[in-house]
């Protein structure tokens, strides 16, 4: 089975990119990052007409398809079917399970809450509805908001209490993860795991796709080592293929034009040449000024020194 899959092209079908993320959907991004961490070459294709589907993202290779609503998710299915497994020796560790529970339940809940309720769905237009006509996108937005609230168990009576609980749990999770991570590169020694994919996706999404006013975003930014961890992994794995380093994450606005590294060195060279030219011209100008004053003084100065003194006294 793996033999004939190697000759086929691997494709991940996800939702469209936005906010400078390769795919803006928080459910699709972990799968993308997982494949990047595993350094498996694959193509990215987009489906932008099905925002309320739980099949996305799906991974296909020839006639083989791994949907997200089967066997616990795309990543689990890829592990199970032997395509790519980053957790082969980690799954038996007790820490692995507890971290996984933390990331997959508390953090995911917090993210779902923040997208649909906390920020009132500001980011959802770009993530889900950019290619759908207005009428359809409005109806689907209400439907998905309703389903999200149901999934989180939010009702009118317990809305405030549930919000506090979600944010508290998120803070505690960030604290625990930050302590566990320290200054390590990955969560588990030197090897990437699926939990790194989930965590990295979570952090990148919150920082880049959510608005600056988001409560969850502020809570996350308090843990600078998590932000550094995300930045490092992003530049190493996500931007390795494209030659474009992006500016630091915490100062990242929602959409930012990318400059590639080569053109960046060029402006520096040009600047120094310009500076030289400018300095040269400035010197010329000063010299000319000085000369003019000297000539004026020497030609006019002898005859009109009294007048000058008189004028000075007046001043």
């Amino acid at each position, binding site marked *: 089975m793996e033999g004939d899959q190697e000759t086929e092209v691997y494709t991940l079908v996800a939702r469209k990119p936005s906010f400078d993320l390769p795919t803006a959907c928080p459910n699709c991004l972990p799968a993308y990052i997982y494949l990047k961490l595993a350094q498996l070459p694959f193509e990215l294709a987009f489906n932008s*007409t099905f925002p309320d589907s739980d099949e996305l993202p799906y991974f296909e290779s020839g006639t083989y398809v791994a949907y997200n609503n089967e066997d616990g998710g795309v990543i689990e299915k890829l592990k199970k079917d032997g395509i790519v497994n980053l957790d082969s020796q980690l799954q038996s560790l007790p820490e692995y399970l507890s971290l996984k529970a933390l990331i997959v339940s508390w953090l995911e809940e917090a993210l779902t809450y923040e997208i649909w309720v906390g920020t009132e769905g500001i980011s959802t237009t770009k993530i889900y509805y950019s*290619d759908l006509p207005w009428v359809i996108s409005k109806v689907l937005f209400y439907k998905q908001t309703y389903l999200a609230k149901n999934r989180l168990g939010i009702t009118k009576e317990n809305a405030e209490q549930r919000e506090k609980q979600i944010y508290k749990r998120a803070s505690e999770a960030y604290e625990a993860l930050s302590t566990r991570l320290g200054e390590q590169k990955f969560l588990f020694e030197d090897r990437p795991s699926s939990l790194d994919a989930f965590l990295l996706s979570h952090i990148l999404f919150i920082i880049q796709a959510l608005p600056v006013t988001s409560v969850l975003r502020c809570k996350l930014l308090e843990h600078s080592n998590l932000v550094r961890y995300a930045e490092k992994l992003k530049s190493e794995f996500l931007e390795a293929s494209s030659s474009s380093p992006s500016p630091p994450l915490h100062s990242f606005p929602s959409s930012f034009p990318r400059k590639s590294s080569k053109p960046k060195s060029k402006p520096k060279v040009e600047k120094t040449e310009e500076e030289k030219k400018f300095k040269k011209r400035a010197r010329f100008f000063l010299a000319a000024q000085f000369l003019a004053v000297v000539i004026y003084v020497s030609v006019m100065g002898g005859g009109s020194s009294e007048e000058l003194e008189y004028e000075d006294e007046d001043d």
Partner: protein
Amino acid sequence: MANPTENLDANPPIRKPEAEEEVEELNGDEEEEDYEGEDDDTGSKSQTREGGSSVDRIKAESLFRRMRAAPVPVRVHDVIVSGNEKTKDHIIEAEVDAVREATTLQELLEAARVANSNLRALDIFDSVNITLDSGPPELPGTTNVVIEVVESKSPLTGQIGAYTRAEARSSSVEASLKYKNIFGYGDIWDGSIVYGCDNSAEVGLGMYLPRFRGLSTPFTSRLFLSTQDWLKFSSYKERSLGLSLGLLSSKYHELVYTIAWRNLIDPSQAASASIRRQLGHSLLSALKYTFKFDQRNSNLRPTNGYAFISTSQIGGLAPDSRSLRFLKQEIDLRYAVPFGFYNAALNFGVSGGVAFPWGSRYQNRPSSVPERFFLGGNSSPVCSLGGPSALWGFKTRGVGPSEPKRKGDSERDFVGGDAAMTAFADLSFDLPVRWLKERGIHGHVFACAGNMAKLSDIQNFTAPKFLETFRTSVGAGIVLPTSLFRMELNYCHILKKQEHDQARSGVFVTFSASS
């Protein structure tokens, strides 16, 4: 939705006794004044006068002789409408415009007959009587037209029938509840449930207006929620919620605008790659124009005449550029040649169609699957008018480009073609058994061919290759026409098919409703 005019009789009964009586009244006005008084006394209301008197008969005969010899001039003075409590006068009067303009008696009688059938076709009256009365005595040579209608006592009617809907391209059974003439404009409201033979179901609410703001063509609108299940053939299910408006509907032309929210889903999660890419929501905003010229003598068993149908559809008529954009054109030509013996006739038919997307980067976009052409099925090409769809011997959606389904499923998905063409020849003849002949059961021998192409392969497309890959089949069978549909029992032999086509030589049964 069934158009009320479909139930129309070609020739409604002409009221002969009244015609004689009308003639006598007019005669009274025009000829000797001796009889005028008598005519006035007998009154314009008399409808039951028996032509017993020989004088009347002589008068009638002389008038008929005059009518046969030359046009008898007459002028319509007034149109009087009675019996309508709910229905607005102008709705009824609008159907009798031709009557007002008649200048001779012959024209008047013909116009009155047409007006009678038009009013019956509105489907809101239990009975319609048109009488020509003598005009006011001071104006000779004039007549009054009196229209008496009896409105339906029970405005609510239920109906079950079998129809062919052009969009579905297949026969369907429809059960509907109609509420007639609520507002007095001849409006018919109906709620209906339709089950189609192609695994489709639809629930809809419709409204029909015979006249809309002065336009002489009827206006129909229909709010529908429909599902079509193609899981077995193409691994997707189509759900639509929308509104369709029939803007123009006359003998030759039809213009329909549809706006619908369409959703393609795959609950089986076994779809092939190109179907998977198409799953999702889309907005369909399309205008469809049909030109139909059908001079054949019958829909179910044409033995003489020809027909031409052209259907053009343009999608994406919305200010939003994200709605589904496509162009679709279908053409259908039919010709029937009668032979003298055994009521035999040779039917030829050719149909073709093409569909493709438009808009930005249209060359790289695949066409939308529900808009593509699919050949095959259990309906007969002789009856299915309006684009390439039916082929004897091939299963539903069993022809054309196909792709393997998801791993683990050995079936294939038929994804349809962007261009399709079919042709058939059918020789029908009566069977020598008299019992069968009386019931209209006849035999036929046929041959058909069809092919499809994808526009994405257009670089590799060559006419010889297209002709080479034509699927063909021949066969013979018996046709049993029933009141609802035409049933055929055929033996088909597949002469040529391509790899993966779902076709077999054997006995098939096809059902077609008249289109």
